[in-house]
């Protein structure tokens, strides 16, 4: 049988989704009561009164709740999920605002009605009076701290962290060349096509709560909600149905609605559902990316970095439930594939009266790559050196692996790159894009009156962060295999890739493997889907669990055949003595034999009953064994594993309109061995589209009063097909990780990371103007030209 690992097979999940038989959150719970929320129209205000009378009297309205109606722990601020010693002033919001609102969209009153239309009618009839407070909008305003978001947080500073390796200031002072750069990235957001949503059903007879939620962590929601509601974990099931995209925003938990909806379901004794609409997703979920950076770099005559000092300011929005993860990732992953000599990084995370900031695909890495790669380009420009050459001179060499950057990473563990070959990646990228021949193309284009430019950008991505994931593999008596892993799925094709792993380990067809994810009933211990960790973490756990099931199948079959386990193999779903098909026992039969029975429930089961034979000198279940043909294993790696990649882009800019067109987009990528190349390439395509979006189109446009003025898909420009590169050219390198049994590294976020960096570089090359702020629209480029004294038709 051909190995399935590495095969670009079609996805097992597609048939269901293509027929319209997916089950997304709002496809469930047709009889549930519907929730609408009254949300703050102000960025910063005190609530002076709430009059719910109009709603309470309305037909179809079942219940109305304000903060004052919430008991005990339900009313309390939501958990601060990731505490850190540097997060000195962590503040989180309450499920319903407690007297003060800190961003437009913050929930104030919850209306429960018989359908969503009536719930919205109810919400409209509620009168809330506010006394407006001065809003803090944008990093300049937050840094100036003329006004405070939270009265008890001086300077609007949530946290401040410094990390250093060596004496960066000394190295810079002694360096022959020094450059200072200011680099800015604006806010964007995950914006999955399906917003958030939660459905809860309380069974008063069994006193059990069942929650369906569009989340990236079902176990996280379960723990948080059980704690809030005072229920035992065992009495709460959390099921993640099909999820219409996550990209980070759905790792946050519990959202206010994830507390309110289960609580209301218990209060009312009826199922209750909240389905977020698009406007709510813009103003009441999460954004990311907004940061300002100051860079000072010292380097030698060859462009080698001797010292790098980076200070940056991170806009964390109104609250900080996810802690300092995003700026910690920027501050560490900024280094990319380079050895910077001495390095010092200092960041300040600031409150503003805007939507909260939590990881969005890439999670601080796009900003880090933008800073580092802009710095590399600036060094090359200062020394009149080739930009690829400057990078080449600063790369960590493969023989230096594992390479310790001397910093602490987002998982609290040392930032040690486990493996990789960065010079080989660069060589592949240069060949793929034709780097060395580009000057000629550029000159030819110029002769035709066209302006084109090329850029490249590199990144290293810590993937597969701990603490752990698990898997439970069960071979049924039918021979079919059921696999459960606890983390959730939102389009990555987990069902397919995990089935591929199991098919190889157990020697069964992929079609016989069924995979369940994100259901606490199937596996109660899990962490979640983020940080490109699912394939590494659950993939490894699935492999280990399948190996355990395989070993057991061999033990059971060997005992039945009175053969030595060492002489056994599994081929095509049959367990047999090596090379002897006549001895083959089907895996399903082995599953029957693995569970000694008193009662035969069907024909096949007779083989496992007490008079069917067996060694009467031993107990039916030997010490150390358990009934059933199963494997249950957990995988917990020492540290993250580090994937890497490099992108190159060629752009053309219009001399009149400043329109920016991507002519070519090339990706070389190293995520170790590919389980399914088709799926990895799909991840890259989607990531690149989001990288392009963040570079050229998407920004959250807040006005000075804190209103998000582009809170719709009409105005926030998620790319259509017309905005993304027509073809992404991809090449792979595979350097296996030593940190997991399959040698794999994560691939989910890779495509997005160098987007802003590579397009800034290409535009800068085309225009010969410094690009220091992204995204850049045609209008921005037009203005930039004008500010440099260039008129139309340069």
């Amino acid at each position, binding site marked *: 049988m051909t190995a399935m690992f590495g095969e670009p097979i*079609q996805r097992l999940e597609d048939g269901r989704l293509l027929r319209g038989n997916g089950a997304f959150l709002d496809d469930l719970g047709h009889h549930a009561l519907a929730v609408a929320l009254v949300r703050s129209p102000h960025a910063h205000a005190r609530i002076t009164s709430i009059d719910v009378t109009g709603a309470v009297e309305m*037909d179809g309205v079942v219940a109305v709740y304000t903060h004052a109606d919430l008991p005990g722990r339900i009313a309390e601020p939501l958990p601060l999920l990731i505490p850190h010693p540097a997060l000195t002033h962590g503040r989180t919001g309450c499920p319903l605002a407690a007297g003060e609102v800190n961003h437009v969209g913050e929930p104030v009153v919850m209306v429960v009605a018989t359908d969503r239309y009536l719930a919205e009618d109810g919400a409209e009839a509620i009168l809330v009076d506010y006394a407006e407070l001065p809003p803090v909008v944008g990093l300049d305003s937050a840094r100036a701290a003329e006004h405070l978001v939270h009265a008890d947080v001086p300077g609007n500073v949530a946290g401040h962290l410094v990390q250093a390796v060596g004496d960066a200031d000394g190295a810079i002072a002694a360096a022959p060349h020094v450059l200072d750069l200011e680099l800015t990235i604006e806010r964007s957001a995950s914006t999955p096509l399906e917003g958030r949503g939660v459905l809860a059903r309380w069974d008063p007879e069994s006193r059990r709560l069942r929650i369906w939620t569009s989340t990236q962590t079902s176990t996280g929601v379960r723990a948080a909600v059980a704690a809030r509601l005072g229920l035992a974990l065992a009495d709460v099931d959390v099921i993640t149905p099909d999820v219409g995209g996550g990209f980070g925003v759905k790792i946050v938990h519990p959202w206010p609605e994830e507390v309110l909806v289960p609580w209301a379901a218990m209060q009312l004794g009826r199922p209750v559902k909240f389905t977020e609409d698009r406007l709510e997703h813009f103003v009441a979920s999460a954004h990311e990316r907004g940061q300002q950076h100051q860079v000072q770099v010292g380097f030698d005559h060859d462009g080698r970095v001797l010292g790098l000092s980076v200070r940056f300011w991170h806009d964390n929005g109104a609250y900080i439930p996810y802690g300092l993860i995003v700026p910690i990732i920027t501050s560490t992953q900024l280094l990319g594939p380079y050895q910077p000599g001495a390095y010092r990084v200092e960041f300040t995370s600031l409150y503003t009266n805007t939507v909260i900031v939590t990881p969005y695909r890439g999670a601080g890495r796009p900003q880090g790559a933008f800073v580092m790669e802009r710095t590399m380009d600036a060094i090359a420009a200062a020394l009149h050196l080739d930009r690829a050459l400057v990078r080449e001179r600063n790369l960590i060499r493969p023989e230096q692996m594992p390479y310790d950057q001397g910093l602490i990473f987002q998982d609290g563990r040392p930032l040690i790159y486990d493996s990789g070959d960065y010079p080989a990646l660069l060589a592949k990228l240069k060949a793929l894009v034709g780097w060395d021949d580009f000057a000629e193309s550029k000159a030819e284009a110029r002769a035709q009156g066209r302006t084109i430019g090329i850029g490249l950008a590199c990144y290293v991505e810590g993937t597969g962060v701990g603490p752990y994931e698990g898997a439970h593999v069960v071979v049924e008596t039918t021979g079919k295999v059921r696999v459960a892993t606890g983390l959730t799925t939102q389009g*990555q094709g987990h069902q397919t890739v995990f089935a591929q792993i199991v098919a190889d380990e157990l020697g069964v067809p992929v079609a016989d493997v069924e995979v369940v994810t994100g259901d606490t009933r199937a596996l109660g211990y899990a962490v979640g889907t983020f940080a490109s960790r699912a394939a590494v973490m659950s993939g490894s756990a699935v492999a280990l669990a399948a190996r355990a099931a395989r070993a057991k199948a061999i033990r059971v079959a060997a005992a039945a055949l009175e053969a030595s386990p060492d002489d056994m193999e599994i081929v095509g779903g049959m367990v047999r003595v090596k090379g002897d098909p006549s001895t083959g026992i089907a895996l399903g039969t082995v599953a029957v034999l693995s569970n000694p029975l008193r009662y035969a429930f069907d024909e096949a089961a007779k083989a496992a009953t007490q008079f069917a034979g067996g060694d009467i000198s031993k107990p039916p279940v030997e010490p150390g064994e358990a009934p059933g043909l199963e494997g249950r294993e957990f995988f917990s790696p020492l540290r993250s594993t580090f994937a890497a990649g490099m992108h190159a882009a060629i752009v053309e800019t219009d001399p009149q309109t400043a329109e920016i067109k991507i002519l070519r987009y090339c990706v070389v990528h190293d995520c170790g061995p590919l389980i399914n190349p088709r799926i990895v390439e799909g991840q890259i395509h989607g990531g690149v589209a989001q990288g392009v979006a963040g570079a050229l189109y998407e920004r959250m446009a807040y006005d000075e009063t804190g209103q998000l003025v582009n809170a719709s898909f009409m105005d926030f420009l998620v790319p259509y097909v017309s905005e993304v590169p027509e073809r992404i050219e991809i090449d792979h390198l595979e350097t296996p990780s030593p940190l997991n049994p399959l040698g794999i590294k994560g691939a989910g976020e890779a495509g997005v990371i160098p987007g802003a960096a590579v397009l800034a570089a290409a535009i800068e090359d085309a225009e010969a103007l410094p690009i220091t702020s992204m995204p850049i629209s045609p209008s921005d480029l037009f203005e930039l030209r004008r500010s440099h004294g260039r008129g139309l038709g340069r």
Partner: protein
Amino acid sequence: MSSPPEQHQVRLVVNGEPATVSVPARRLLSDCLRHDLRLTGTHVGCEHGVCGACTVILDGVAVRSCLTLAVSADGASITTVEGLAGPDGTLSAVQQAFADCHGLQCGFCTPGFLTTITAALAANPAPTEDDAREIIGGNLCRCTGYQNIVRAVLRAAELMRARPGGTGNGREP
């Protein structure tokens, strides 16, 4: 005290089956299909007509069901994603092409692409690559980056030509 909204009878033919529903005048066709008729394959991504996830084929034309009132569809014949596969469950050419080309990831926007492309290929059975981009130019996908969806449009046209009858799903057009 408000009074319950007035109900209106709406007669539809959905995926070949007659259906009569009683809805308030303001009920969106998307909600009517999803919640009254339980055809939840049609998804709602923005409710302002931009993303295209809710696209259905109404009297042969691809329309945004989130911008259509159910009452205004009275008497119409509607095809949703659930009606694309053949009576025996065989995937239509467009559906099969999406599977062949890895044209979907999370699958949420997919029904809107499938209906949009199905309607467009009925009018233009031999699209160029530029046509393919034009066909899907009003639908948002956040997962795939579109490259494989463009391929799927071309692949679907190829499959339709190869299948008897050319409609691609074995149903009456």
